């Protein structure tokens, strides 16, 4: 239905020729923009209602003194539903380790929470389909669980900033929201998020549409296709500075895939965009000493590269 609306608008009302480059690019742009904004509004709202039942204080209690493995799996799963903003990473980290959540389990949460986020999932689902979105969730959780276990095994507690262990953490009762309050919160959250990301979505879809219409097919096949072994690490390295722009990056990547970028490379790039970022590293340096920060980045980047190679090989 959306597709016929976009077709009608572009080819009948505006009068561009079907099959022409400008016509196809504009058609693609209008269709994708409407689809993504519809998906974003509905799903972010639903996710926000669910999330309001999982305040970080509750997650912390559930993870406190959990053993590794089970703790890492729970932390990665809770990372999906617990609201997280990198600006709260420091109080969250301190709250976790102070209440006895093991370091590796804390990292599983810190990795999964930004990576498996609703905006990335909606964009992947809307543009790539539900299979790719599910593969992204599955491999994102796997990266978070494995990286957390490895960090836990390395016993790096001494590389947490010393003041963290001495911190006095108060105990606040969990504030329970009524259902009406949850709906109000979800509405505010959805509007706030849409206000923040809409320019990225429009620019991203616009660039994607341009690539779709004007860049020749299999343009990228030679250097970003499955045969180039350097494509995955390069994609991960490029993904790190593009933080918080998942909304803008995914439409561009979608168009690049049409032009021959391999699927594993696409997934690795997406994960690097959401999970690794320079601003987050700066924020985390308040609680982590350099060796632990470097280990965290190194392990997550390596895990993402492996995921990229894996899917390039099997899909």
């Amino acid at each position, binding site marked *: 239905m959306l597709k016929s609306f976009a077709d009608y608008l572009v080819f009948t009302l505006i009068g561009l020729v079907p099959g022409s480059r400008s016509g196809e690019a504009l058609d693609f742009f209008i269709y994708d923009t409407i689809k993504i904004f519809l998906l974003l509004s509905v799903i972010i709202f639903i996710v926000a209602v669910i999330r309001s039942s999982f305040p*970080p204080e509750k997650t912390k209690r559930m993870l406190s003194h959990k053993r590794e493995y089970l703790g890492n799996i729970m932390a990665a799963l809770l990372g999906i539903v617990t609201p997280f903003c990198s*600006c*709260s990473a420091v*109080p969250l980290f*301190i709250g976790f380790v102070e209440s006895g959540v093991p370091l590796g389990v804390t990292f599983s949460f810190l990795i999964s929470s930004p990576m498996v986020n609703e905006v990335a999932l909606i964009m992947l689902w809307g543009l790539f389909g539900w299979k790719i979105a599910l593969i992204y969730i599955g491999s994102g959780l796997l990266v978070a669980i494995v990286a957390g276990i490895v960090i836990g095994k390395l016993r790096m507690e001494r590389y947490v900033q010393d003041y963290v262990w001495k*911190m006095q*953490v108060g105990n*606040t009762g969990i504030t329970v929201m009524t259902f009406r309050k949850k709906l109000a919160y979800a509405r*505010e959250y959805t509007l706030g998020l849409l206000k923040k990301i809409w320019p990225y979505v429009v620019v991203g879809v616009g660039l994607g549409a341009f690539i779709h219409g004007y860049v020749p097919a299999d343009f990228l096949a030679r250097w970003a296709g499955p045969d180039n072994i350097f494509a995955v690490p390069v994609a991960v390295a490029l993904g790190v500075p593009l933080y918080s722009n998942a909304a803008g990056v995914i439409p561009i990547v979608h168009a690049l895939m049409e032009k021959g970028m391999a699927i594993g490379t696409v997934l690795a790039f997406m994960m690097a965009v959401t999970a690794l970022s320079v601003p987050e590293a700066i924020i985390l340096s308040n609680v982590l000493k350099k060796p632990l920060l470097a280990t965290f980045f190194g392990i997550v980047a390596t895990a993402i590269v492996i995921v990229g190679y894996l899917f390039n090989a099997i899909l």
Partner: protein
Amino acid sequence: MKIEILGTGCANCKTLYANTMKALEESGKSAEVVKVEDIPSIMKYGVMSTPALVIDGQVKCSGRLASVVEIMGLL
């Protein structure tokens, strides 16, 4: 009445501060409003997600932006 806005200085914390000032203005009440930005003081309240609104030492809401109307109800 003492109101504290807890947060490390992100955009939401600034908006919460502005909302609080507006709520005070509209309700005609007066209070001492302080921004709390250092981590130890935030952790003392056990708050793990910012911004948070503390009135007379009690955490009223955390991890979300309270609207002007909601804050007026809390005053």
